[in-house]
């Protein structure tokens, strides 16, 4: 298409052509819309200068280009982009490449997206969380790519001696009306600028999209299926030998003394043993020898931060801290439902355990890890090592899952401190058992919901969510947040703010109040594919089912009647129709339907569950079977799905998480320690729990602007499964996961030594 078509008469955006040897373009993260006299304006930095000064981070704050993301055109006709976000499986490298391919008119396979190192000058703009990547980068990435295309057209026009308006671009080639053509690669040098230029550009209208909104496979899929995709522990950093930590028998316990340090240091393959704040670190030739050394260590431990705590003691704390309801008793004829739900601790452990490589020298440090908040990691590690942040290089590696865990840099800072103590590079990996027991957990919470109704209307809807404190110290909002979170006075207010910012009730239920209170900060916590939503919304949807039943209405039609938003009604209608809502089902089986709005998106889930004794009692060795979700139908509207295939994948994963937290996945807290220590004890959804039937419907674009997708399905699926379970069994579940109060489905591993030995009989199980 011609350049005039591309931009005429539309809103323009500001960006840069950077001084570089080949064409390099950039746009500012954050607000980029050009004002009327765009060329005269210099975009301001997004945050107060005193923040920079306070942290003494930015040496080049005066540069107008400090806050940019940039795309480079290479002479081989490819484009390169270092995304200042983490890729942990959610597909942002693919969707970002799609945005560039779209605006640049370049085939998708010629766009190379890598992950940027920590860039402190980006301040608030290098955090991967809150399902926010596509929302925040959708326009800036396109602006940069559109500027690149504009420059390529100008360079081609100069070479061909024709007007830009007579040229078109397609598949990485500029073509003229007379049939001449030049590839982008041949223009990469000519289109470059010797000085940095501020320019404005228009963006392609949605009607002309040929990449955005089309299903695309992941750009890293080939690497993933061939084993070539490299995670932190696959990197070969000179001298960085396997390293593990012997951890305490209670949460955050401390080392008092080590009885046999010299003997362990003399064990086969072991090079170093040192005591650090979190335990006793061992470094050796292989991780297997590190496991042997950890198990051999004789350590006297001091108390931790949750001594003696159990599910029961935490529940008592939560109940005592529940904030009062504010709606006074209502007149005669007003009836109420009033239910309290309990959500137990759950692990956000990814399959790639906490891990990082660190090479700390006297004057500098280098870190490799999957970090969703690398700037905070860099600052914290620098402070812990007594180095300037500029002396700490943080490389963001591909992540083997996150689910909230990799917002934190627990392994990275631990690796840095061990490397300094040993004076050697280390490749630190947490054992799986440690990852469950000492790693972060989604906090235990209760949610009381009271709703009143009268004459066919819901008059009031109140929710009091009471939770073990959620750690936001990873920098949700980066620098300022990390400072605020350190102030005890401000912490509570911040959590309440987060709760208010993220939680909503999608129904017209009269006077609605939702409040959070937090207790007990002795645990290592974090979000888990959502902060509060899965629990808060599951509680709400169960009460909605109760209200519908009490008012004699169908659960789907009741929801539809009270929903505020037409987009919500549309996804709900979609699953009710596609999932044949209300069909006759055998005893012990049932449907559940639920809706969830978040991050400018809507999801509806219809789940069918089988709670018949034959299914619940089915036997799989070393597994939790229980009720089986047999079918899920999901409809999702995120406004604009950049990559519908990627969005389907996010829904699929979210549904598996929702099934897990509803039915099987919980941590049992006993005597200051979690009992679960392996994937056969922490029951995340396995193939035998997977619904044989799964249908995901991506709604056509509604708003034209992408919303968040990573967390959306978890709450909807958890709620739908819980509602289905309640209908199938005739008893509304009030404790999650529903198997939590059943007898433990495993024999807990010992806490000393803290990790189990690897089996030796693997060949007998070969198949």
């Amino acid at each position: 298409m011609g350049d005039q078509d591309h931009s005429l008469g539309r809103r323009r955006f500001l960006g840069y052509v950077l001084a570089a040897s080949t064409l390099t373009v950039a746009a500012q993260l954050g607000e980029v819309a050009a004002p009327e006299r765009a060329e005269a304006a210099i975009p301001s930095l997004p945050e107060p200068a005193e923040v920079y000064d306070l942290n003494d981070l930015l040496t080049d704050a005066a540069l107008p280009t400090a806050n940019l993301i940039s795309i480079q055109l290479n002479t081989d006709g490819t484009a390169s982009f270092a995304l200042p976000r983490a890729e942990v499986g959610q597909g942002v490298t693919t969707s970002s490449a799609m945005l560039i391919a779209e605006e640049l008119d370049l085939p998708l396979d010629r766009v190379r997206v890598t992950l940027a190192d920590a860039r402190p000058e980006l301040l608030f703009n290098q955090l991967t969380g809150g399902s926010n990547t596509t929302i925040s980068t959708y326009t800036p990435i396109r602006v940069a790519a559109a500027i690149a295309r504009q420059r390529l057209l100008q360079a081609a026009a100069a070479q061909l001696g024709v007007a830009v308006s007579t040229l078109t671009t397609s598949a990485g080639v500029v073509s003229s009306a007379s049939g001449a053509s030049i590839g982008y690669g041949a223009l990469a040098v000519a289109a470059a600028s010797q000085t940095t230029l501020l320019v404005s550009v228009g963006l392609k209208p949605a009607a002309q999209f040929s990449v955005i909104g089309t299903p695309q496979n992941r750009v890293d899929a080939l690497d993933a299926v061939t084993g070539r995709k490299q995670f932190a522990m696959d990197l070969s950093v000179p001298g960085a030998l396997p390293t593990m930590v012997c951890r305490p028998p209670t949460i955050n316990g401390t080392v008092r003394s080590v009885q046999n340090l010299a003997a362990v240091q003399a064990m086969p393959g072991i090079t170093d043993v040192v005591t650090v704040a979190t335990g006793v670190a061992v470094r050796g030739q292989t991780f297997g020898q590190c496991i042997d050394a950890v198990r051999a260590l004789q350590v006297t431990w001091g108390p931790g931060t949750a001594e003696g705590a159990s599910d029961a003691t935490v529940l008592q704390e939560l109940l005592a801290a529940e904030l009062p309801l504010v709606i006074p008793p209502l007149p005669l004829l007003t009836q109420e439902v009033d239910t309290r739900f309990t959500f137990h601790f759950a692990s956000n452990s990814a399959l790639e355990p906490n891990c990082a490589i660190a090479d700390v020298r006297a004057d500098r440090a280098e870190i490799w890890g999957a970090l969703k908040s690398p700037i905070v990691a860099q600052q914290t590690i620098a402070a812990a090592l007594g180095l300037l942040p500029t002396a700490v290089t943080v490389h963001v590696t591909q992540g083997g899952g996150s689910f909230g865990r990799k917002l934190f840099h627990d392994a990275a800072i631990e690796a840095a401190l061990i490397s300094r103590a040993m004076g050697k590079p280390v490749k630190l990996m947490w054992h799986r058992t440690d990852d469950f027991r000492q790693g972060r957990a989604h906090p235990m919470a209760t949610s009381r919901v009271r709703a009143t109704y009268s004459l066919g209307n819901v008059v009031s809807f109140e929710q009091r969510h009471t939770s073990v404190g959620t750690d936001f110290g990873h920098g949700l909002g980066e620098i300022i947040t990390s400072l605020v979170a350190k102030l005890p006075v401000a912490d509570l207010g911040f959590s309440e703010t987060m709760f208010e910012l993220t939680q909503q009730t999608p129904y017209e239920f009269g006077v609605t109040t939702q409040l959070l209170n937090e207790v007990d900060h002795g645990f290592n916590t974090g979000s888990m594919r959502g902060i509060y939503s899965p629990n808060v919304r599951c509680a709400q949807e169960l009460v909605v089912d109760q209200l519908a039943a009490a008012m004699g209405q169908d659960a789907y039609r009741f929801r539809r009647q009270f929903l505020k938003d037409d987009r919500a009604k549309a996804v709900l209608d979609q699953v009710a129709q596609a999932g044949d809502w209300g069909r006759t089902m055998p005893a012990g089986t049932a449907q559940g339907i639920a809706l969830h709005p978040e991050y400018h998106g809507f999801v509806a889930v219809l789940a069918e569950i089988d709670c018949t004794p034959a299914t619940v009692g089915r036997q799989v060795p070393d597994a939790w079977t229980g009720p089986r979700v047999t079918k899920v139908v999901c409809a999702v509207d995120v406004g604009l799905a950049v990559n519908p295939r990627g969005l389907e994948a996010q829904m699929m994963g979210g549904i598996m998480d929702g099934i897990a937290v509803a039915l099987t996945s919980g941590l049992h807290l006993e005597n200051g320690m979690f009992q679960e220590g392996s994937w056969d004890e922490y029951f995340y959804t396995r193939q035998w729990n997977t619904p044989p039937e799964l249908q995901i419907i991506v709604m056509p674009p509604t708003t034209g602007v992408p919303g968040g997708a990573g967390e959306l399905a978890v709450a909807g699926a958890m709620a739908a499964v819980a509602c289905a379970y309640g209908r199938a069994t005739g008893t509304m579940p009030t404790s999650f996961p529903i198997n939590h109060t059943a007898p433990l489905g495993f024999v807990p591993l010992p806490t000393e030594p803290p990790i189990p030995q690897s089996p030796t009989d693997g060949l007998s199980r070969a198949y």
Partner: protein
Amino acid sequence: MPQHSFILNGTQVTAEVDDDVRLLWVLRDVLGVTGPKYGCGLGVCQACTSHINGKAFNPCSVPVSAVQATDEITTIEGLPATVGKDLHPMQEAWLTYDVAQCGYCQPGQIMAAVAKVRQARAAGHEIGDADFDEIRNICRCGTYHRIREAITAAAKEF
């Protein structure tokens, strides 16, 4: 230091390492073959699943001394060569169905899937839901449904 020899992805290799070190660490830490991933070291998560003489197994649960010089160990890196192609049909199906999310468990999933198809065949049936329910490999991203679709498609191609 004892020496241990076996056939790794078609090539005879020798590693100098203590007898009781599990094969996973010999592959990853000594020989630098990183396709098999660590997910638990307990034979539970199956992320390290590879093949020994064509059968799926977990190298995290086998001491290197239990592997014989004539044993053929195949990791994800060596899978395509077993069919003489650039990619095994199972890997092709994985691409077609865009199965991988983070990708960490996927080498193990693919190696398990190939063995599972063969196992079903040896038992006289094509792979189906009952077989899928037996696959123990964890995928924390929850790609289970696409795994089932990909295996079903790939089973027709080899």
